[in-house]
Structures are given as structure tokens and as C-alpha cells.
């Protein structure tokens, strides 16, 4: 046989792939090959391999090597064979049979089935959550049942990427809204939450108005006293944590900031008091709760930062249309932050005080109106201080503007270790500002035209308060203005100070113009019962007061002289950093800056003002 002889010769010259291997590979791919086909294929494979070998030598030559490497060969395969495997196939061997095979990938049959069998029904948009599933067609019903069973029974993963689910979305939402009925079963709740997550993550779904329903279900898991929580063995906290995480996820996904803005933000002061109380309790029994409290603090902080970010974003988007006139003065006023002109600064410094005072207690809690960003920022800053890591761009229309204090920066300052130089608003300027009373007439126009700008500048005081003390102890001239920040805090405890500040604040009030009115001030300036009612206290907490039990932490603190509230002008500014720990009675008036750790009030406010905001702390 000439052919056989030729084949023999061939084999001598080249390595050959025997047809058996070809057949084997084909079988592993589920194809039955005839002998002749296999032979042909084997020959072709040999040829292709030879070809690749030839061209791989080129890669070797260009790599200036003498050895041909596997990579060279892979590279040679790439241009010709589009799908040269990057990773080697996982071969496994069976010892008995001397057989090697490629391991098969597991195929999820359920997934496959679901992906193909769903009838495509064009759904009319359903806005409300259906109460029953009877209206479904047979196919859909079957599918629906299958899925719900799957969810309540097994694996919810199939919802994440299933594109055929849109038709059933309302029904799923309906299922999820049934959380109340399973509140005794943590496992089921967990599954439902996972289902929510899957729905949210499914890129093929448009949730639209169902978000609200989902949110309410999730909120239920977060807030309500679940039946499951009666049993102390149930770890319902994990569930709540997860639900909260999910909620934030939803907000982030659906870009809803209104929830945070409407729900969290207005009630923050009230809630804050509770939190503060918890955090202030250093008793051992409270340790667990306190740890949770810190968690909450962090969560709120994150939420609030996001809120600010989103607000700033939307503001900058609408700024062209709404605030044309605000544009150029804004630029004018904010730019001085970097260069001398000090007047608007001090003016604004007073601005915050004026806001706080002028707002009065009458601001309605309900009747929500969008709070302008600067105001919001100002307020939040009063809560969180430098922990607030949101930093606005200094552009004129980023209203919040004026580069909010970054976390580390704030830290350095709060610790009183003299990071003052990095602040844009330098003390000398303040001094000047102090000497010259806020020039209302000088810049009335600019200030009046752009409320958000004054607010913008109102952010600056927080920066000032740390720096003068730290770096240059008490330039006398500073005393007056240097306090612009402490002032509001103390104002709650001492009304005399308020009065003393009144003229200025009024002046700046004038200058600040409309912004003051927009600023809902009520909860800051309701001072009647110090340490009594939570809302009133909220503001104090914002100042991060600390109590006498904190001596051990002194290195981290900047203590203010005890006399501060009554004589805020000079004493607080001149007080040496290592001031003796304040007496308990004076505690509310004593300020200390602490870092992410929340300061505490000497007399822990045990009473929780609004219990429905509570954390369901185990007692």
C-alpha cells in the first residue's frame, strides 16, 4: 500500500496526531466520528499544528531566544485560531483506563429551562401591586409558582440575571410585600430580602414605582419588632443588618436620595439624642449596644455624605438655569477664600449664627421642603463635624462649595496639633474681619443675591475654630470671631451669649438675606432644657462635648476652658489645649474635639425621645 508507506514516511518526519485521539475528543464533545472523518481530521490537525509550529519559531526569534516556549506557540495560535484557550484545559485522568478527559462544566438545568421556556407576554404596565395572581395565564402561573417555590425553598440566584421575569415583576413584589406574614421565620425573611436584592440587581428589570413597595418591605425588616426577635436565640440582627445594607443598596441603585433627605434628615436631631445617649453610656452592660451605636453612627454618616454628594450634584446640574445671577458674585465671594479679602468671610461666619438664632423654634417639622444644600451641610456639619468627609468643589455653583473639611484634615485640627496652616482661611484674615464689623452695606448685593453663598461661607467657621488655637495661641483679636463656631453650641446652653451675639447676627442676617429664611433652624435653637429634651440636646451633641470620664483620652482631645460659654470671647480661644477635664456640672459647656468617636454628654440622656426611631436595642 503506497498510502501506508507514505504515511509511514510522514510519521517519521512529523509528529502525528493519531486518529484515535481525534475520535476521543470528538466523543467527549458528543460527536460520533467515522474512521475516515477522524483520519481526515487528524491529518488536518497535524497540518495546523505544523503550521503553528512554523510561525511560533518567529516569535522565538523575535524574543531573541534559542528555546521555543509554550508561550511562543500560544502566540502563534492566536492570529490564526481566534479562540486559543488562555487557560489550559483541566485534564483529569482515570488511572485504571489510562484515560485523560476534560472535565465538563456543570450546567444548571433549571437556569437553562427557565431561560427558554418563559412565554413572552407583553404586559400592560401595572402600577399597583397586584393582590392576587389569579389573573395570570397558565404558563406564567406555573412559572410564578415555580419561582416562588424556588425562592422560599432554595436558591434565589436565578432571579439575578433572568431576563424573562419582567412579566412577573408585580407578582414578585406582591410576594415580597408579604414579609409581615412570615415575620416569625428569619430564614424566610432572609430569602425574601435576597429576592429583593436579586430583583434590584437584575439588569433587565425596570422597577419603577415598585421600588416604594420594596422599600417598605425592607424597612419592615429593619424597623419593626419582628416576631422572630422574641426568641433571644434568633439572630435577627444579622437580618436587620442585611436589610439595612439592602436599603442603602436600593437607594444607591435607584438614585433616590429623597428617602434619606425626607426621612432621615429631618429626624436626625431627635434620633441623634438617642444615639448619643447610647454612646455615652460607658457601662459594661452597655458595651454591646454601644458597639452597635457606633455602627449606626457610621451608617448615618455614610448616608448623609451620600445625600450631600447627590445634592451637590443635582445642584450643579440645575445651577445654570436657576441661579444665573448667583454665578458671578459667588465666584467673587468664594474665591477670596484663597486670597485676602476677608469681609465676606466674617460676614458669613456670623451668618451661621444668625441663621441659628433667627430660625427660632417655629420651624415646622412637617411640611417638608427641600433644604438647600448649604444649609443642610451646615447643619450636618454641626452634627458630625469634621467626620463629614464630603468635600465640595470650590466652584461657585457647587453652593456647598468652599471645600468642606476632609476627614484627615479635620482630625489633625481637632486633635489640636496645629494643622492650621493648611486651612484656606487664615487667622489673620479673621482678625481683620473681627475688627471690622460685618460690612453689610459694603456687600449687601452680593450677599443678598445669593443665599447659598452665604451659607457656603458659613461652612468656613468650622475650619477656623481649630486653627487659631492650635497654631497661634490666642491672638486677642481673634477672640471675637474665632468663636463663630463654638458660639452656636454654647448658645444653646447660655442664652446670654446669644444675646451678646445678637447685633452681629442681625447684621449678618441682613447681609445673608434670604438664605436665613430658607434655613430651617428650629431644632438647633430650642434651648429650653439643657440635657432635658432630646431635640434641644441634639445641638449640643453636635459640638461633641465630652465628659469628665475622658481624661484618659486627653491626647486626642482639645479641651476648652470651662468658662467658655459665659465668656466665649477670649477664654475659649486662649485656653491651653491640655485644660483640666471639666467638671461634670460644666460638662455641657465644655467642648472637646474628638475624632470619629462620638463625644458624649456628661449626663447621659436616658430617655429616648422618639422610640419608634430606636434601634430595637435588646434591653
Amino acid at each position: 500500500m503506497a498510502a501506508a508507506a507514505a504515511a509511514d514516511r510522514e510519521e517519521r518526519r512529523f509528529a502525528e496526531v493519531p486518529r484515535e485521539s481525534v475520535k476521543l475528543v470528538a466523543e467527549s464533545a458528543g460527536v460520533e466520528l467515522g474512521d475516515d472523518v477522524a483520519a481526515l481530521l487528524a491529518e488536518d490537525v497535524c497540518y495546523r499544528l505544523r503550521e503553528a509550529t512554523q510561525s511560533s519559531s518567529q516569535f522565538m526569534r523575535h524574543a531573541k531566544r534559542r528555546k521555543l516556549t509554550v508561550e511562543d506557540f500560544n502566540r502563534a495560535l492566536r492570529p490564526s485560531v481566534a479562540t486559543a484557550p488562555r487557560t489550559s484545559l483541566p485534564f483529569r485522568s482515570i488511572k485504571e483506563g489510562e484515560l485523560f478527559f476534560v472535565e465538563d462544566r456543570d450546567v444548571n438545568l433549571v437556569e437553562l429551562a427557565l431561560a427558554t421556556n418563559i412565554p413572552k407576554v407583553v404586559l400592560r404596565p401595572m402600577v399597583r401591586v397586584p393582590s392576587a395572581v389569579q389573573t395570570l395565564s397558565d404558563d406564567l402561573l406555573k412559572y410564578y409558582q415555580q419561582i416562588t417555590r424556588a425562592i422560599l425553598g432554595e436558591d434565589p440566584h436565578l432571579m439575578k440575571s433572568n431576563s424573562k421575569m419582567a412579566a412577573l415583576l408585580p407578582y414578585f413584589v406582591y410576594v415580597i410585600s408579604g414579609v409581615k406574614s412570615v415575620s416569625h421565620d428569619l430564614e424566610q425573611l432572609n430569602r425574601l430580602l435576597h429576592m429583593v436584592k436579586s430583583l434590584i440587581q437584575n439588569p433587565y428589570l425596570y422597577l419603577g414605582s415598585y421600588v416604594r413597595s420594596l422599600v417598605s418591605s425592607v424597612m419592615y425588616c429593619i424597623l419593626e419588632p419582628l416576631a422572630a426577635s422574641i426568641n433571644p436565640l434568633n439572630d435577627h440582627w444579622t437580618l436587620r443588618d442585611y436589610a439595612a445594607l439592602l436599603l442603602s443598596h436600593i437607594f444607591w441603585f435607584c438614585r433616590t436620595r429623597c428617602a434619606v433627605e425626607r426621612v432621615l434628615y429631618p429626624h436626625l436631631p431627635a434620633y441623634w439624642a438617642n444615639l448619643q445617649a447610647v454612646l455615652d453610656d460607658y457601662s459594661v452592660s452597655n458595651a454591646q449596644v454601644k458597639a452597635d451605636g457606633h455602627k449606626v453612627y457610621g451608617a448615618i454618616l455614610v448616608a448623609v455624605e451620600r445625600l450631600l454628594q447627590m445634592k451637590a450634584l443635582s445642584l450643579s446640574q440645575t445651577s445654570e438655569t436657576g441661579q444665573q445671577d448667583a454665578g458671578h458674585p459667588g465666584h467673587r465671594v468664594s474665591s477670596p477664600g484663597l486670597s485676602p479679602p476677608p469681609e465676606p468671610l466674617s460676614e458669613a461666619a456670623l451668618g451661621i449664627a444668625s441663621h441659628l438664632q433667627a430660625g427660632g423654634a417655629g420651624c415646622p417639622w412637617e411640611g417638608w421642603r427641600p433644604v438647600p444644600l448649604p444649609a443642610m451641610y451646615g447643619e450636618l456639619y454641626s452634627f458630625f463635624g469634621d467626620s463629614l468627609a464630603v468635600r465640595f468643589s470650590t466652584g461657585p455653583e457647587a453652593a456647598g462649595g468652599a471645600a468642606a473639611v476632609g476627614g484627615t484634615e479635620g482630625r489633625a485640627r481637632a486633635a489640636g496639633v496645629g494643622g492650621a496652616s493648611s486651612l484656606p482661611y487664615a487667622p489673620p484674615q479673621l482678625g481683620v474681619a473681627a475688627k471690622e464689623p460685618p460690612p453689610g452695606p459694603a456687600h449687601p448685593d452680593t450677599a443678598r443675591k445669593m443665599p447659598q453663598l452665604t451659607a457656603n461661607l458659613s461652612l468656613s467657621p468650622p475650619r477656623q475654630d481649630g486653627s487659631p488655637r492650635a497654631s497661634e495661641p490666642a491672638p486677642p483679636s481673634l477672640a471675637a470671631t474665632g468663636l463663630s463656631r463654638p458660639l452656636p453650641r454654647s448658645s444653646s446652653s447660655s442664652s446670654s451669649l446669644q444675646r451678646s451675639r445678637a447685633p452681629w447676627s442681625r447684621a449678618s442676617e441682613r447681609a445673608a438675606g434670604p438664605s436665613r429664611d430658607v434655613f430651617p433652624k428650629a431644632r438647633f435653637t430650642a434651648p429650653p432644657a439643657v440635657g432635658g429634651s432630646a431635640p434641644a440636646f441634639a445641638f449640643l451633641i453636635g459640638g461633641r462635648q465630652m465628659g469628665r470620664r475622658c481624661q484618659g483620652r486627653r491626647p486626642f482631645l482639645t479641651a476648652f476652658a470651662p468658662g467658655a460659654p459665659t465668656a466665649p470671647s477670649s477664654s475659649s480661644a486662649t485656653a491651653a489645649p491640655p485644660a483640666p477635664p471639666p467638671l461634670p456640672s460644666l460638662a455641657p459647656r465644655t467642648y472637646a474635639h474628638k475624632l470619629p468617636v462620638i463625644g458624649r454628654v456628661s449626663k447621659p440622656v436616658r430617655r429616648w425621645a422618639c422610640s419608634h426611631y430606636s434601634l430595637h436595642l435588646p434591653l
Partner: protein
Amino acid sequence: MAAVQSGQIDAEEEKEIKSETSNDAPRNNSSNDGRPLSASPGTPSSGGSVKSSSGTTEEQQTLLAVLQFLKKNNLSESVEILRREAGLSEESEDQKGSESLGTGTGSGAGTKEPTPGDASSLLSRVSNASSAAAAVAAPAPSKVGAGDDRPDVNVVLSAYSQQGDPALYDVYYSGLKKFIESVLDCHRAELSQVFYPLFVHMYLELVYNNHESESKAFFEKFNGDQECYYGDDLRILSGLTKREHMRGNETLLDFRTSKFVLRISRDSYQLLKRHLQERQNNQIWNIIQEHLYIDIFDGMPRSKSQIDAMSGSLAGEAKREANKAKEPEIEVPLDDEDEEAENEEGKPKKKKPKKDSMGSKSKKQDPNAPQQNRIPLPELKDSDKLDKIMNLKEATKRVRLGRDNLPSICFYSFLNAYQGLTAVDFTDDSSLIAGGYADSTVRVWSVTPKKLHLSLIDKESDDVLERIMDEKTASESKILHGHSGPVYGISFSPDRNYLLSCSEDGTVRLWSLHTFTCLVGYKGHNYPVWDTQFSPYGYYFISGGHDRVARLWATDHYQPLRMFAGHLADITCTRFHPNSNYIVTGSSDRTIRLWDVLTGNCVRILTGHKGPIHALAFSPNGKFMASGATDGRVLLWDIGHGIMIGDLKGHTDTIYSLKFSRDGEILASGSMDNTVRLWDAFKAFDDLETDDFTATTGHIHLPENSQELLLGTYMTKSTPVIHLHFTRRNLLLAAGAYNP
């Protein structure tokens, strides 16, 4: 000249075809820019008497056949031109169309041939048929030239469809072999050139017609006859046993789309022809007609060594026209002279006899050289001028090298380069060294005590730059990440602001040496890019790679300015001529091509290497070039005449680096065989006497003096020499990765 003397018919026919090709690919001068038809010499074979009597009719019929073909392929423009040139009216064509077609297919050939001889009628039929077939093949090359990646394989291969008895191939070939072995020695060398292309085409024909066992047997039997330097091709060929394989095989397509060029003296050619006629060996004759281009010259047959020196490329030798006819076209001769070159007073001027250039020679500008503003260049910056001044200052301290005064060599060994060092470059002032690695990184070192940024930052600039100069961030080396495949070529810009790197991932990247970041990724090559180089004045750069196209780029354009297509295989290395007007590319098809940057034309094709070319270097005066290949030989070229002027044997492995000393007196070569060798370039060029005869015929007589020219061999310690560089003071720097 000699080639066209075979008769009027040929001249006519060649003209026609030329017009056609130039029509198809007007701007593109691919390898096929010459006449694709070799049928010409064969046509008159029907005998002198025939020609005189029936010459005109026959000629017309051929013309008409071609016209018919063109029409069929909607090449109306070509039809017009052809008709105008030939002076044919439309009626005559219509009238004779069918008739001529009949002739074309060969069916009615007998009627046209008054000569009774069997052989001649046979041959004329063959020649007719082949002209038709050639016309079929003709468009294909032009398509390739136009940048089409895959020429129409079917068209290309269909030339193989005519087949004889497969069993007879053996007989035919051995018959021819016997004949060639029996001819006089002087002819034997020339005629044995036929073996290789003939063998290849016969084998392919067998494969194409599915005679697998016969083809294998054929291969086995005659495998050893060819020159040893075709071994690589033959190995590829031997793997090819199925018709299906032929479709994707690039080597094969190269064979098909280009004609293998042979240079044979008239006497030898007549011998061959006569033999084939006597033996009625039309199978072989067919192949010769269709797939070979035989460049006939008058005069003495060349000797074996002469032939060997020039052959070896994938497509045979370069046609003489390729290296000559172009000169008037570009109107600028290749010789060019930098100011520097004036140093070489000892060197005789290579003059082209046709040009009376010597009289008007001025000190500043060689009239032969292209004008200095021929290639637009960005203006010199102050820093460039400073650098030029520095360069001149250094030049005054330059060591004068020569036979008795060899340069010192400083070798930079890359230790622990496990990533695989693939490319190295030095800046012109030798202050920086960059290495390209197989792990896709580029590393830059400062080889002077200055740390990296310090030498690079302009201190007068504003304070932003001072930050970059911060001492803390300074370092002796920087790593540039960006490529996703091995970096095969790197090149510093002359002003040391930029670095180019090309990679397997198909991109060329431009890096800033101020910020050490990637500035641009030039995407154009779809396949690995093997080499890239900045022009001597910066701004432009050239790249070439697996896609067989060299591209000219400007740094501020993301698309190439020129594409140079024509090589039959990967472009393995690219270099700029010192005057920036030309680029030279070396390729795996074992040819070197010189391209005019301005027009994009291929102005020289240099053959002679027996392996892929991996190193190229111009002499500083731009007149000469050295090339190194995997065959371990360094060839010296006179670019002006397009001829080989030296063959330096000594290396035993691939030559990866070549460099002339600053004044062009010494040539250094670095190789995979772990040696640096120095050659006396001065002597090699000095001895040179290019007479008229050599210049016109391209018959070279290489002096066998490569051992005399070898000035020194310097072994490294198991370190292949990847790069060589002469500092401005003529210290030789070499670099390579230690390879334990």
C-alpha cells in the same frame, strides 16, 4: 534591456500588462510592480519565420484575448487604455473576439500555426494558453498590493487546474534534472536555479489536483536537489499535503501571487528552451511560463558563486528594473551626504555615469542628495539646538577609529532578566538605556550618575515641573506598563523626550520620558509589530510587523501617514535612512526593500540573504547599508546602485544588531552566537570599484576578503548581543541579557 529583445510582441504585451497593473493599483507599488507577465520570452518560440508572417495577427489576437478578459472583469478603464495603446478599434475587437477567444483557450491553435512542427505548435499553444492564464493571474497580485489581505485564492490557485498525468511529473522533472546536469558547467549553475521554483510548483500542482501519494513521492524523491538555503520553505511545503491546506497557507500564496524571478543569460535560456521543445515537455514549460519570471541578459553566464550571492529570497532575485528604473521616477538619486560624511575624504565618490553630478558638487549639499526640505520636519527647539552643539563638541573629542585603532567596547549585561529581554535601545547621547521585555514592560535606566528626572526636566520651567524633579521620586530606573504582549522593539526619540515601543499586542506606544507615562497608543497593525524606529530628526517613526506592511507615522497623528506594502512575509526590522527620506525594511521573505518616504514607492529590492533579516544599519553618510540575518552573514550594500558589495562571514548565528561607528569606518555586529565582531567598513567601501558593467547588469563580483575585513571578535559570557551603539566619542556600547 536584454530581456525585451525577444521580439516586438513581447514589448507590446509587456506594455499592455503594465498599463493594466498600474491601473489597478495606481499608487501602490507592491512587489509585483514589475511586469507580471513572463510569457513574453516564450511567445516567439514558435519560430522566427512564424513571427514575421503571422506576427501581427497573433499579436492582435493576444490583445483581444486580454481585452476580452478585462471586459469580463469590468476593468473598463484598462480596456480603454489598452485599446488606445494598441490602436484597436472597437469593431475589430468585436469582430475577432470570438475567434481570438478560441485561440486563447487553445482549441483552435493549430489553424493559426503555419509551421508544421509538432513541437512548435505545441509550444505556441502553450504560450497562448499561458498568456490567457497569466492574464487571469495578473489581477491577483495587484489586489494583494492594494492591501487586500487575502487575494482571491481560487483565482490564484486555478492556474494549477490544468494538469497532466501525475505519474509523468516524476519523469519530467528527472528528465530536466538529467539534462541540466549534463550541460556545460557554465550553464549548469544558471539552469539549476530552475530546480527550486519548478519543484515547488510541480509539487503544488500535484497537491492541488489531489494526487496526495504522488505528491509525497515526488517530494521524497527530489527533496535534496534544491539549494540548502531553501530548507525552511521546503519544510513548510512538506507539511502541505492537501488541497484544503493551500487556502490559508501564506507561504504558498506568496508563491502564487508573485513570480519567482530568475536571472539567466540568453545562452542558457536558449539551451533550456531547446531542450524542453525537443522533449515536448510542456508541463514544465507551462510552469516556467506561468509562474516564473525569467530575466534574460546578454553576455556571459554568471558563475555559481555569483548566483548564490544574490538568490535566496522567497521570490527569487530582484528584477533589475526594480532597482534601476525607479531612479528617474523619483528624480532624486539615493546617494545622499550628511555634513558628517565630509570627514571621509579618502572615500571615492560613487558616481553614476549617467549623471554629471560631480562638477557641481558643493561642500554643503550634495546635489545627488534629496533636498533638505524634502521631508517636512518640525522646527528645531532650543533644546535640540543645544543638543546639536553638545553633539559637535563631543564630536571634536571623538576617537578616530581605524584598522589599527579599534574602539573599546563596554558591555551592558542584563542580569536576572528572567522576564526575557527582547529589545534594547540607547539614546543618542548614551545617557539612557531602555529595555523591552517579554512580560510586556519597558524599563528605562539612566546610565549616567544623573537620576532619571534630573536629566530630563527643564529647570527653567515653572514649579509644576519642579515637583516632578523632587529628589524623592527620582530613581535610576523606571518601569513602563502598558503593553499586553512582549515588547519587540523600542526606540528613543532623538531629543530624548519620548520613547517608542512596539509589541506583540499590535500597538506602538509613545511614552513620555518626563512623566514616564504612555502618551499615545498607535493602533494600526493588527498583528504583532516587530520593530519600530524614530526618524533621525524625531517626529516621524516607522513600524513594521507580521501584517507585512510597514507604516510611517507622525507622533501627532493617530493614523499612519504612509503604508509600504510589498513584502511577501513579515517585516522584521525597520530603519530610517540618515536623511529621513528613505526607510529600509527587512523581512522574513529574505529581501530588503528601500522605500521612498515621500512617494511611498519601493525604490530598491535587495536580495541575497538566506534567512529572515533581523538587523539593518546605514552608514553615517547614507550611501551604504549593512544587513544581518539569521544565516549569520552580514551583507554590505551600495544603495545607490542597489548592489551587494560585501559579504561578511564569521557569525554562526542570527545577527541581531549592526552599527557603524560615528564616522563610518568600523562596522560592529552583534549576534546570538555571543560575539561582537568588528569589521573594517572603510576598507570594504574603499576597495569598491563599481564599473559600468556591474552597475547596469547587477552582476556582482564579491571580493572574498571577509576574513581580511574582520578586525576582531569579542566573546561575551553567554550573553547574546542584542544591541550595539557607538557613543558620540566612538566608544562602543553593547547590551544583552545574560543567558545562563
